[in-house]
């Protein structure tokens, strides 16, 4: 009887250990096309190239007498993935209302206030031919799941690096260049056309506030 109980316990524990390590994956669903009406003026396009490099160092970690220890496994496991991506900057015209377009009483001067440009990664291509894996004899190949997670991090890194570039400033200038001929055709002379961006107004409001505060202190 005890033997039976002992064997049952072993089988149960093996099952429990197995269950604790398995990850339940959410089912993959193919979405139907999502259609969104929009009005975005794309004004700047940057084509970028990035080489993503990944290296993992596996170590057996455990604890002995409540002291954590880590024994690194020798061998290399490296991955290189080159990516070409296209990033576009746009001005969202759906955020513009009648209040953002001001024509003076004489109908000669026009001021348009645009929302701040935003960036989007419009397309990306992995260079499969130049993708390389460097593996030691004792290390396993990269799984598709690992690669996909790593590439997603690379995508985020590309977008983050674009935030430090001049794409937004260039987009503002190009937005003015794109709107000017439309407004000239609409009968406004180039010197009477003013295009501003909402964050510039915010900055001016802020500085106006400081000036007001300073004048109060001086009084």
């Amino acid at each position: 009887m005890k033997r039976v109980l002992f064997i049952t316990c072993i089988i149960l524990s093996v099952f429990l250990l197995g269950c604790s390590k398995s990850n339940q994956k959410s089912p993959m669903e193919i979405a139907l096309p999502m259609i969104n009406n929009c009005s975005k003026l794309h004004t700047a396009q940057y084509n970028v190239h990035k080489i993503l490099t990944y290296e993992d160092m596996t170590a057996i970690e455990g604890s002995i007498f409540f002291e954590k220890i880590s024994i690194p496994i020798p061998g290399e496991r490296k991955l290189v993935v080159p990516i070409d991506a296209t990033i576009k900057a746009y001005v969202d015209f759906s955020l513009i209302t009648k209040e953002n377009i001001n024509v003076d009483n004489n109908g000669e001067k026009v001021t348009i206030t645009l929302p701040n440009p935003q960036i989007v990664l419009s397309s990306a291509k992995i260079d499969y031919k130049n993708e390389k894996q460097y593996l030691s004899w004792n290390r396993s190949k990269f799984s598709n799941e690992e690669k996909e997670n790593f590439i997603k991090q690379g995508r985020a890194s590309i977008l983050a690096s674009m935030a430090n570039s001049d794409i937004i400033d260039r987009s503002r200038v190009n937005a003015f260049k794109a709107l000017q001929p439309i407004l000239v055709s609409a009968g406004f002379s180039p010197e009477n056309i003013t295009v501003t961006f909402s964050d510039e107004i915010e900055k001016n409001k802020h500085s106006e506030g400081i000036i007001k505060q300073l004048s109060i202190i001086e009084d």
Partner: protein
Amino acid sequence: MALTNKSTTKKRQSRSKSFVTDEMVRSPWFWVGLVILGLVYFFFLRDSDKEKKKATIDATPTCITSIKEIAEWEFLTLQLEEFVDTTVNKKLSSAQSVKIYTGTARLGIDTKKANKNWIVCEGTKATITLPAIELLDKSIIDDTQTRTFYESGTISATVKEKMLQSAKKKMKATALKKENIAIAEENAKTEFKNIFTALGYKTVQISFKK
């Protein structure tokens, strides 16, 4: 005394029935084995995540290969997904790959393709001839979002490239359907009408270049 003798004999009898016998307990190998089992437990079984990976992703600089000044007006966005299943049969083996591609198709106009006099204003009437609605991006797939649903065997870079092109072709066909172009045209008309009405024009006539 007789009672104690009886109890020891009972204990011996019960031990002999169980797994651990007196002989085993007396053997030093039993204790060595026990210590090894304890160590194995401490090393491998105590922490479920015994094998930990320390990954380093190198932050190589993003090289800007080209900058382009564009004036594209997007009026319809389609978020698309395409499923591509490929089997490659070789002499001795076969390989299969099933991938799900994600892409964004942007329909709109490229104002750089407009005629010289695409906007004509007379009095309170504005006549606008917009360029034809088209796909604003040559490549609509974001390959960084691609998911591998199933893969067996080795899939070459050429096959992966073919799968990508197949997905792209399917997405383009979905995006450039008549009804999608019609919605984009309608949105374009509404947008330009709103702008020119705000600029003071009472009649705004919009058509598309053929």
